[in-house]
């Protein structure tokens, strides 16, 4: 997908690791000016270095997506530095607490909702404000196959990701007249540091075989496979696609 994002200014949150890091690199390779954001400054600096080593453009602005103030500042800085915002991959998120619903504490629940759902809302809200001033844009939210189907011990995560899918559809309707497209990607289990951490979790590992077998394609996904979908949705090839959860899950949700 070389050249697919030429001259576009694109934000990637959660770009310090996993799908975000791989996507940020691929977005830069597709010709965009990438702004990477994360709370993990060490991870983000590695992503930044990898992009710059390829002779491509990138910039890092730290932000915690669960704070609206920080998200607002992040978008403001991007517009100050680059004059516009054309695309965003709202990818920052955390995993589930690995507990059945009756064992989840209010604090545990709120943390997942704050980062995985509220964080996407703050991003979408302030990205809209920037995009309204430059004639439109394309937003891709990181949902999950868990945003379409439920799984065991994950009510916090499943609720947040279903929320992201709903927010995506509703924001797409709001953005339509202003040429702002809003879509989501719904990955299955992808081989990332977060997934590896989960696999080592005592509770999660017990349900791992069941979750693996739902990927009917017979393997887990690679971050590059999600990045391909994200770049496509950010590009002008998808100018009639909005409000769509694009599934990249090896058949998990069939």
């Amino acid at each position, binding site marked *: 997908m070389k050249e697919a994002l030429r001259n576009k200014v694109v934000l990637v949150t959660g770009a310090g690791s996993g799908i975000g890091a791989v996507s940020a690199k691929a977005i830069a390779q597709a010709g965009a000016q990438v702004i990477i954001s994360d709370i993990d400054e060490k991870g983000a600096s590695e992503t930044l270095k990898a992009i710059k080593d390829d002779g491509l453009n990138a910039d890092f602005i730290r932000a915690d997506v669960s704070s609206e103030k920080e998200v607002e500042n992040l978008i403001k800085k991007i517009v100050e530095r680059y004059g516009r915002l054309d695309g965003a991959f709202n990818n920052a998120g955390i995993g589930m607490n690995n507990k059945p619903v009756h064992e989840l504490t209010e604090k545990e629940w709120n943390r997942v909702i704050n980062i995985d759902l509220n964080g996407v809302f703050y991003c979408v809200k302030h990205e809209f404000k920037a995009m309204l001033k430059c004639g439109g844009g394309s937003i891709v939210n990181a949902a999950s196959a868990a945003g379409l189907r439920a799984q065991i011990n994950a009510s916090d995560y499943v609720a947040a990701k279903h929320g992201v899918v709903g927010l995506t559809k509703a924001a797409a309707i709001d953005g339509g007249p202003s040429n702002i497209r809003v879509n989501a990607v719904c990955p299955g289990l992808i081989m990332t540091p977060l997934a590896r951490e989960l696999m080592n979790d005592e509770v999660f590992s017990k349900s791992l075989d069941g979750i693996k077998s739902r990927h009917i394609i017979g393997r887990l996904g690679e971050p590059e496979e999600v990045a391909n979908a994200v770049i496509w949705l950010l590009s002008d090839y998808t100018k009639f696609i909005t409000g769509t959860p694009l599934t990249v899950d090896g*058949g998990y*949700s069939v």
Partner: protein
Amino acid sequence: MSNRLLGKAAVVSGGSSGIGAATSRIFIEQGAKVIIADMKEPTDEQLKKVISDNPGSAIFIETNVLYEEDIKRAIEKAVDEWGRLDITVACAGVPGLGSDVDITSDEWDKTMAINARGVLFLTKHAIPEMKKTGGGSIINISSAYGIIGVPGFAAYCASKGAVRLLTKSTALEHVKEGIRANSIHPGVIQTPMLSTLWEETENPEEVKSAVIGQQPSGAAGVPEDIAWGCVYLASDESKFVTGIELCIDGGLTAK
């Protein structure tokens, strides 16, 4: 961003006009060889130009998707010519006018036969060939109205809903053979088929604006919007993607 389909062989039913013509054209531009399986030869000027600019890249086979033999012959042609079949795009379709109370039995049967059974035939004869080369990508054009309903199109909605679930069954059944199957759900797209909805009516402008007015943005899409979806699903970029329903509908089903 060219050559995303280099070396792949495809059969596109309904490939001479509308969404099928745009798909055939962009597939050729992206390096694929294409069997254009349709009742009439391509009339689309852009497609005709791409075919003449790329000799050997496309073959037209007269095909009526009502007849299994026709579809079988189209698939065999791809294998005879290029030694393989990597992609099918089931695009042939009819609008199937009529509500649930006024549709005739014949119209219902014809709509189901073209829009649903025709897709089955293409899948049925493609699978054995795809198995020989270790896999392939089956792309079935359903509709946004295979997910949501619309008054006055009972058979159309039923047939497109059938395509949606046929595709998921194919995905599950043949995943171990390396075959992926996905459906695309276009919203209101400017095609010759769409124009037939108002051309013969008493007040075409009114009907046209009512049809296009279904779109949240108030604008219809173009065939290329769907063709690029086919390119994504046909290419190796989507090799972890199977059994999905890809809506390319300007937000129609999000509403």
